[in-house]
């Protein structure tokens, strides 16, 4: 049984031919999506939102501080207006308002979301936040998703994916913050820019499902027109950065 943040996994699997896999409606553990600036976090979150919106379940709640600049390209069927309508964007402008939104999530009427997404967590962790404040925000995100799961009922659940921008070499403050967040988000997906991949702008996505299954890796490539393609990272044991001359296929 695949339990891992299924929405994201399915989003990543879209590039592969095997789309007919059985999927579970279980939400899996909360997932932290980590990457540097411009590593495709928002595009992946949005893809996960579209996937979840196409499942005939509840709406998707997408929290971000600023509206998306553009919709990811090239997914004609996925960008169907009925799916887009099921994605509810909310833009809490400050940490205070994000906390208020999470604390009052149970007051909202209507069907409970089947997926809760937060983009740009780092924008809400500004200022002199101590460990307890960071932990409280993380715990409230989990608590909100748990409440939605409770509303949805047994057998299903509300997934949670949070994107956090990390620096290539974080200072000690970032490291403490990250380790606190990792307490609450057992599953993590790391995005790294990869020059060898097949595409103009290529990233490597490495998914560690937090002890609930094997790690998996993908290439995520963005073409100049913005279209995103995802292909499974070639299965290779040992050092993934070994150069095998595979970069030629990605040359323009």
């Amino acid at each position, binding site marked *: 049984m695949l339990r891992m943040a299924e929405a994201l996994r399915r989003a990543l699997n879209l590039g592969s031919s095997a789309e007919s896999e059985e999927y579970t409606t279980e939400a899996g553990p909360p997932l932290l999506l980590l990457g540097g600036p411009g590593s495709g976090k928002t595009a992946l979150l949005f893809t996960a939102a579209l996937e979840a919106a196409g499942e005939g379940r509840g709406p998707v709640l997408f929290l971000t501080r600023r509206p998306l600049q553009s919709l990811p390209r090239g997914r004609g069927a996925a960008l169907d207006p009925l799916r887009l309508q099921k994605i509810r964007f909310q833009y809490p402008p400050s940490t205070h308002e994000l*906390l208020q939104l999470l604390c*009052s999530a149970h007051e909202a009427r209507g069907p409970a979301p089947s997926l809760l997404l937060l983009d740009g967590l780092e924008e809400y962790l500004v200022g002199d936040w101590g460990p307890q404040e960071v932990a*409280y925000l993380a715990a409230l995100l989990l608590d909100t998703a748990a*409440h939605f799961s409770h509303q949805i009922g047994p057998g299903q659940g509300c997934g949670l994916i949070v994107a956090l921008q990390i620096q290539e070499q974080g200072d000690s403050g970032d490291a403490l913050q990250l380790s606190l967040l990792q307490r609450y988000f057992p599953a993590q997906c790391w995005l790294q820019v990869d020059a060898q991949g097949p595409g103009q702008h290529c990233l490597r996505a490495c998914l560690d499902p937090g002890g609930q299954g094997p790690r998996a890796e993908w290439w995520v490539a963005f073409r100049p027109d913005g279209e995103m393609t995802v292909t499974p990272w070639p299965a290779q044991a040992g050092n993934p950065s070994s150069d095998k001359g595979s970069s030629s296929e990605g040359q323009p």
Partner: protein
Amino acid sequence: MAVALPGVTLPSVVEELLSEMAAAVQENAQIPDEHLLSLKFIFGSSAVQALDLVDRQSITLISSPSGRRVYQVLGSSRRTYTCLASCHYCSCPAFAFSVLRKNDSLLCKHLLAVYLSQVTRTCRQLQVSDKQLTDILFTKKKQEA
């Protein structure tokens, strides 16, 4: 990254102990001595303090019509701390210091008291409105920030 996950789940040995205790309590209406010793072994002095909080009925499960729930624990210093029901979080300073910052404890005594009160089914219950539950979750934050 093979990190332990105390933030989300308890180590299985603690889970097992708690479920054994729950079964024993259902049968005999009390916690057997050997379980108390195991508790003391794992949690040290926090175990005694947590049991004391349970004895004093210091744990309240607050719920609203929405179904959302949160625990409040009245600490020995007469301060009230909020513990989330869905994952490990307590608003007390010991949780911030020993669990989050120093990473040398699994739990604070308040969270342990919450788990023990679930086992012994001795927590008080309080129904509030959805709005009041929001205030409990949110004002907690404002006080601390």
